[in-house]
């Protein structure tokens, strides 16, 4: 058995309001690829950020190459030999490959940089890995896969022995994945330990030796990959009981309200088609990056799309920009409240009336204060927005109340379809229930509700029908009452099998 090169024990880490890691342990041996698995928010990234010095732990011990370490800075971690290859690549895209690889530790004579020498060494490292990249090329001109290779080469050039790869294959094609795996195998032979974080379970068999599974900030288990099955892994990933209670309302399913056909918008929205009926809430489940947010944005007309047909109450509607969607009665409460949902520095009143100025203005486009007040008072009352008055900055409200303002913007109009993208993210339990009740209320009024959420229990508890997406495609549809978490997660991780497709 190979030496243990990383041993983390009893790691605890809290962020305000969340216990991100709870007594987690982790072990990595030299010459192995360890898959670190878990759903979004299981604490994988947090744990790896502690190992690479980005975060500091609250308590627990960490030893690397048998030596105990207190809190590390990213630079110290690098010196010890830990390198992390981020999901969103961290490179200076204007600089060349060699320049990036030697950034911060350039070779130089007395004054002048030894460019040729650095380029040669970069070339040597790249050749070693059999990567065909010209070290003089600007990183920004390379395809993402090659940029990733450069990051790996950079890590090796600083003699990293512990490589953390966060979703390294998400942006790669089959051929490129092949290439990456070849390099990973080579690193393994050289005695590097590799932590491999991925949601693409079907890839694991090609590369992984052991797996560690985390769930809700806790260490669940670790085992040899060969001794386990995919079902076992998935069960361990989701195996929580649903604790919270969800207020479900039964309605009679009515006529079809909204239908989307043949929606395509880039890689993240491919051939999406679904319909929503009166009196039902349709949930969208999937892992982060599955293309759900992109789908909602494409429907709402925010991002350009290649194709797509929309039918509202049987009539075709054209949506080319958000204004089209709003006029037709299809509205979106976006994922990122602070960025896309609200003008945080404007008052609640300003926010509520922003998309409804056509309703509250008179013929001369002057705002009618009386109508505006009516509209705001109604929204505050209907949605139970907790605020002393509507002149307070929207940014000062709690998350739940902010969410209510976002929704309130749309309810003043007679909307037919309301799309909620992660409406409960970052808000407390009580406020969550109010949001659920709000969705139920819309459902009872016959408004079609689309509910996107990454939290499986809440989708299963609130939605009537669940559409699962993975990698830009709809991979399945289940009825909430009969579906199991395992079933949904299996659908959510059914990536196209790139490894075989290429042959």
């Amino acid at each position, binding site marked *: 058995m190979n030496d243990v090169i990383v041993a983390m024990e009893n790691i605890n880490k809290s962020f305000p309001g969340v216990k991100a890691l709870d007594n987690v342990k982790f072990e990595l041996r030299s010459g192995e690829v360890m898959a670190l698995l878990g759903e979004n928010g299981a604490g994988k990234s947090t744990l790896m950020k502690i190992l690479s010095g980005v975060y500091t732990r609250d308590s627990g011990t960490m030893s690397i190459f048998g030596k105990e370490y207190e809190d590390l800075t990213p630079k110290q971690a690098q010196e010890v030999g830990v390198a992390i290859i981020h999901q969103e690549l961290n490179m*200076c895209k204007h*600089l060349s490959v060699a320049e990036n690889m030697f950034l*911060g530790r350039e070779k130089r004579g007395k004054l002048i940089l030894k460019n040729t020498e650095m380029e040669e060494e970069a070339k040597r490292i790249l050749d070693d890995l059999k990567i065909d990249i010209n070290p003089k*090329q600007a990183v920004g001109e390379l395809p993402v896969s090659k940029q990733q290779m450069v990051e790996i080469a950079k890590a090796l050039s600083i003699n990293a022995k512990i490589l953390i790869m966060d979703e390294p294959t998400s942006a790669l094609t089959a051929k490129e994945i092949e290439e990456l795996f070849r390099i990973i195998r080579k690193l393994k032979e050289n005695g590097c330990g590799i932590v491999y974080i991925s949601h693409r379970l079907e890839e694991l068999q090609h590369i992984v030796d052991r797996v560690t599974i985390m769930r809700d900030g806790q260490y669940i288990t670790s085992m040899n990959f060969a001794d386990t099955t995919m079902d076992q892994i998935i069960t361990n990933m989701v195996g929580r009981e649903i604790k919270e209670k969800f207020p479900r309302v039964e309605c009679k399913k009515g006529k079809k309200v909204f239908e989307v056909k043949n929606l395509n918008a*880039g890689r993240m929205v491919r051939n999406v088609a679904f319909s929503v009926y009166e009196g039902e809430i349709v949930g969208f489940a999937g892992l982060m990056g599955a293309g759900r947010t992109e789908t909602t944005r494409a429907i709402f007309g925010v991002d350009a799309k290649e194709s797509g047909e929309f039918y509202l109450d049987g009539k075709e509607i054209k949506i080319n920009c958000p204004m089209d969607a709003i006029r037709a009665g299809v509205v979106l409460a976006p994922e990122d409240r602070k960025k896309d949902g609200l003008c945080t520095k404007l008052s609640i009143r300003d926010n509520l009336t922003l998309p409804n100025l056509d309703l509250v203005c008179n013929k001369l486009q002057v705002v009618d204060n009386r109508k505006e007040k009516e509209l705001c008072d109604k929204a505050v009352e209907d949605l139970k927005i907790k605020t002393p008055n509507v002149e307070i900055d929207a940014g000062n409200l709690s998350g739940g109340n902010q969410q209510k303002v976002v929704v309130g913007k749309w309810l003043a109009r007679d909307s037919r379809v309301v799309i909620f993208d992660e409406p409960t993210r970052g808000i407390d339990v009580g406020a969550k229930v109010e949001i659920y009740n709000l969705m139920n209320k819309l459902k009872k009024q016959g408004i079609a509700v689309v509910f996107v959420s990454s939290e499986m229990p809440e989708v299963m508890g609130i939605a009537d029908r669940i559409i699962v997406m993975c990698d830009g495609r709809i991979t399945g549809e289940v009825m909430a009452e009969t579906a199991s978490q395992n079933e949904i997660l299996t659908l959510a991780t059914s990536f196209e099998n790139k490894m075989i497709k290429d042959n």
Partner: protein
Amino acid sequence: MNGNKKNPLKQVLAIRGMGATLTAFAGLIMIYLAFGLINSTVFTGQNIMNLLRSMSKYLLIGIAQSYVLITGNIDLSIGSMVGMSAMIAATLMTLGVNPILAIVITLICCLAVGVVNGFLVGKFKLPPFIATLGTMFVTRGIAYMVNGNRNTDAIATGVGKETADNFQNFFYYGTTLGIYNTFWIAIVVFLIFFFLLSKTRTGRHIYAIGSNVDAAKLSGVNVVATTTKAYLVSAICSCIVGLILCAQAGMGNMEAGNMYEMYGVAAGVIGGVSPLGGTGMLLGTLAGASVWQTLENGLNMVGAQVGIQRIVIGIIVVFAVLLDVVVRTGQIGKKNKNAK
């Protein structure tokens, strides 16, 4: 991909910012020839001399602003530093201080402004537009106060006619090898800072923090020091331009250098320096300053009014950036699909 090696032209074009630089130089030649054909005095030796001298100031200002722009920041205090430099140098000399000592003191004052800029932006993370807007007002205020809210007398009244002439000749009126000294000063400064930016670690770090400050920091680049160095280069160049203006007038003018920070942006941007940071080279700035001055000179020669000159410069700046955007993305005004 490795075909680059075989094609020398491609290899040259692959150098950061070379494309825009070559475009600007091509534009320069065309503009020069066009005006020359309209009015042949454009080609006379005296005009070329004047052109090189007027271009020199803008080159220095362009270098100042380009360094800061490449780090992804901006320096609005350049013009005020020019004014302060001219006023401090002139005031000291009217008081009889030896010119060399006066220059040293002036330089120290400008460097102090550079350090303040660097710390406000690098260390305290103020938006550079605001931080240097502040120092712009303060520095201009100092320029006013140096001599009690009025322009200085002729420097000859303090240091004597001979010393004053020497000072003025050194920076402005004298020639070496038949070309005005101003040009030689600008070229020496240009070469030093060209070298610093393209061949040294500091230069590399300046590009890196302009390209991706987080990646640079995670790679161990000292962001505060690098930012400050860029502002110091800006301060040094501004100081020299102030001295040139002082020598030109033979006195200190409180309003000297007004708007120069924007001229610096124009020179840099015409030459392909991106205001978003990370790209551009000083050769481009040289081309940019030359295009601009050739244009101004040519328009003067054909009798165009100042108003026309300004309008043309404005159009050229916008056009240069638009061209850059079109070349890079291959499209105009289309929404970037991969924006998210």
